[in-house]
């Protein structure tokens, strides 16, 4: 021991206090409200048909990410690792990369291999694209899978940056131009499998041919199997990704995406280009960027855009859904008005949720994300016209900062993923779980956030949580609300 310490010299408190302010993200991150980039890339790769992701780095990265995803999706999530050793770190990960590709092909016969890098392989300067070319040259296999490689060091941006990077890489390496078709590209962003199913249903009801990328509505939410599938069915087929370049237009959900300028990602560099931007620049596919269709305003925007692009009118089914949603807004408005909410998680979800809460009269007291785009504040103010001045918006926040904020500001409800449960529990604040991850409940993959019905489900849950809280804390309990 450098300086042997006698035990009575250190001061010890049995329960630690929560220092308010002062500490935080500037120095250490305490309970991070974000994950690392290869996780996002892995999820996106899972949404491509026949794709097996390989994480080029240490074994732990793949295993930790698998465990994290499995706990949310409750599905097998196979992600291979190139399993770096000390030698690969010193001499480069080429040999391991090639071995990993070969072993994944022989075990899985994948249509596509999605390679995501890690902080380790990026720091030592591994060139994965070169390794892939190398593998192709050396392989004597008759047919080879398609390769997509995403640059996802975890010291740049969050899992969301990794997600969009993987989607953009897929399009950049596979999309082709050609004569314009009737189809639309939809880039839904990091939504739930249920959300993807909902968006697909909407497009089917509109009878608009469309390509969703990625589409993990099946692969990360499988029905029961008779025999084990090494690669789950479903996902966007490669042929569809090819056709992205000849689409009539793209709809890109989310307005922050991977546009972050903080933590090393530089505006306008290739890493901050989204798939839809690339298609617009390279093939002239017009891009419609908008917030997630959550809340009446955002849904209207989405449906009107679909109608306008396709020249088709909005199906009656959705007009009715919208009507019912607004009817419930009226039924419930008194129970939510003026309540103060904390909304946290991925930036684009935080924007959409805030805008929804804003339209029902809930005050967004704090909108926080571990994401570091530096754009959250502008976007929130843009989409929350009702109570703009009151909102505190924080980029680069962690859960302990949210915790301390809640101790001081006593909000009425928390809305976001399951990781803030400990705050809700300690401070006796109701929590509505949505987004990613949901690790302490079943069904995270089936939470619907988008569309009028997704909004409806969230609205009912939020309002009932508030009503229930009041009922539980009332002295008499009551049978009518």
């Amino acid at each position, binding site marked *: 021991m450098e300086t042997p310490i006698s035990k009575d010299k250190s001061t010890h408190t049995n*329960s630690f206090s929560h220092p308010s302010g002062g500490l935080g993200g500037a120095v250490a*991150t305490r309970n*991070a409200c974000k994950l690392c980039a290869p996780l996002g890339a892995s999820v996106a790769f899972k949404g491509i048909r026949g794709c097996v992701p390989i994480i080029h780095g240490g074994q732990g990265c793949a295993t*930790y990410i698998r465990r994290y995803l*499995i706990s949310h999706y409750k599905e097998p999530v196979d992600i291979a690792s190139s*399993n770096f050793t000390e030698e690969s770190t010193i001499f480069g990960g080429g040999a391991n990369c090639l071995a990993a590709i070969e072993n994944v092909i022989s075990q899985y016969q994948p249509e596509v291999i999605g390679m995501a890098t890690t902080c380790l392989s990026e*720091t030592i300067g591994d060139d994965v694209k070169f390794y892939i070319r190398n593998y192709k040259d050396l392989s004597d296999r008759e047919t080879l899978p398609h390769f997509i490689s995403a640059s996802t060091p975890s010291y740049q941006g969050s899992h969301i940056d990794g997600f969009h990077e993987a989607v953009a890489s897929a399009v950049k390496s596979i999309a082709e131009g050609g004569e314009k078709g009737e189809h639309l590209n939809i880039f839904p962003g990091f939504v739930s499998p249920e959300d993807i199913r909902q968006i697909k249903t909407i497009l089917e009801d509109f009878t608009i041919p469309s390509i969703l990328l990625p589409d993990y509505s099946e692969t990360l939410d499988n029905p029961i*199997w008779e025999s084990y599938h090494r690669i789950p069915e479903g996902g966007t087929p490669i042929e569809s990704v090819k056709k992205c370049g000849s689409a009539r237009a793209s709809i890109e959900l989310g307005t922050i995406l991977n546009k972050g300028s903080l933590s090393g990602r530089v505006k306008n560099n290739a890493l901050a280009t989204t798939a839809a931007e690339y298609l617009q620049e390279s093939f002239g596919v017009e891009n419609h960027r908008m917030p997630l269709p959550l809340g009446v305003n955002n849904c209207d925007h989405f449906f009107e855009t679909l109608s306008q692009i396709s020249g088709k009118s909005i199906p009656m089914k959705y007009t009715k859904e919208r009507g019912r949603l607004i009817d419930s807004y009226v039924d419930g408005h008194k129970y939510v008005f003026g309540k103060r909410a904390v909304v946290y998680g991925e930036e684009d979800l935080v924007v959409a949720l805030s805008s929804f809460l804003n339209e029902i009269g809930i005050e967004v007291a704090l909108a926080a994300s571990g994401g570091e785009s530096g754009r959250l504040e502008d976007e929130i103010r843009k989409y929350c016209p009702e109570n703009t001045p009151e909102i505190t918006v924080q980029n680069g926040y962690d859960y302990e900062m949210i915790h301390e904020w809640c101790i001081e500001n006593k909000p009425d409800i928390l809305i976001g993923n399951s990781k803030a449960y400990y705050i809700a529990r300690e401070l006796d604040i109701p929590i509505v779980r949505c987004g990613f991850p949901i690790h302490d409940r079943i069904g995270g993959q089936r939470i619907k956030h988008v569309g009028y019905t997704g909004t409806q489900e969230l609205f009912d849950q939020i309002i009932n949580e508030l009503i229930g809280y009041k009922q539980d804390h009332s002295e008499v309990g009551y049978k009518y609300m």
Partner: protein
Amino acid sequence: MNDILKERQNQVVTKGKDDAAIACGKASVAGSVSQRACVFCGSRVVLYPIADALHLIHGPVGCAAYTWDIRGSLSSGPQLHRLSFTTDLKEKEVVFGGEPKLYQALISLIDNYKPKAAFVYATCIVGVIGDDVEAVCRRVTREKGIDVLAIMSEGFNGTKKDGYKLACGALSKLIGTDQTSIVPEHSINILGDFNLAGELWMLAEYYRRMGVNMVACMTGDGRIDDVRKAHKAKLNVVQCSGSMTYLAKDIEDKYGIPFMKVSYFGIEDMSDALYEVARFFKSDEMIQKARELVREELSKLLPELQKYRAQLEGKKAAIYVGGAFKAISLVKALRLLGMKTVVVGSQTGNQDDYNLLKELCDEGTIIVDDSNPNELSEFVKQTGANLFIGGVKERPIAFKLGLGFCDHNHERKEALAGYEGMLNFAKEVHASVCSPVWKFMK
């Protein structure tokens, strides 16, 4: 089965068919979707339960995010271990070095949370970018007056087992630093129990009833000051031998304290763990008390178990867990419930563990080291298992195939150790195998 990767074929043996010894302790094959994690993971899981220490992960955000509150290790006091601290390195630090950020993070966290000691875990890129973590730790030790220990657990630098060793090394540095405390005559340390679902409290109570005092548990419900005086115990009782044997041997070398390997899963092993300790102290009174305790506990437990056994008799189980020692106990515990083990494997077992398993299991049992989802699903199908026992990553494999699953990993919320734990185990196996939902799988 044809689909086992060539490099892995000697890591699978079938009892009665293969005479060769199983290969183990190898690095995972690239691209094999191993269920293992990394060096960092090994260190982190072992030290995690020390509740009054600061655990700071030096590196980009992922490693800390994925290990936040990861184990169900309970603490009877401070809860500091349940917070996830990281230096969250960004590109700037990767280029210019992370030492200043590490230093500042340590200072501010120590000032604010007043931990008894701090563990700094170096992750993959820290060594690559050339941070001198140990120098920063020494400096903070001097300035703050608490031990700040560097765990050089770069993920690529070996396997999870190497991470265990590093964790043991850090504990070893703390042990022996309290010279003044006095402990009772019949004192032991419990090594390799992590107080999942309060299991340690149950075990400590059994020992207390026998007249045995516990000095330190490493690391369940762990406290730095207890670790410091661990060298005052007379005996180290080691569960989870995969992670803690290094430390037990180290203590034996330094302080001449012997150790014994035990397991607390299942009636036989649990009772042996008590008898062995009593025998060690050569106390008739203690042996007598242990017998009474076992008799008392069994008279409550056995009639209860019979109910479950009646319905479980003849069912087949597959086991895939982290450590092989646990697998051995599980085979025995399942036998007590009338069940047969048809597949058994671990992430980190050694040759002795696997030999023991081979001896213990019936003919035809598949024994496997460092397996993966493809193999496991294949084995399960081949053997017609009715139940899978494993951790989070094995669960969906079982469920997708319509197979009962029993969670025996570190996130569990029900105690499975001890006599009470055996009943919980029986209940869980019963619920997993006998649920009516499997009827829909046909």
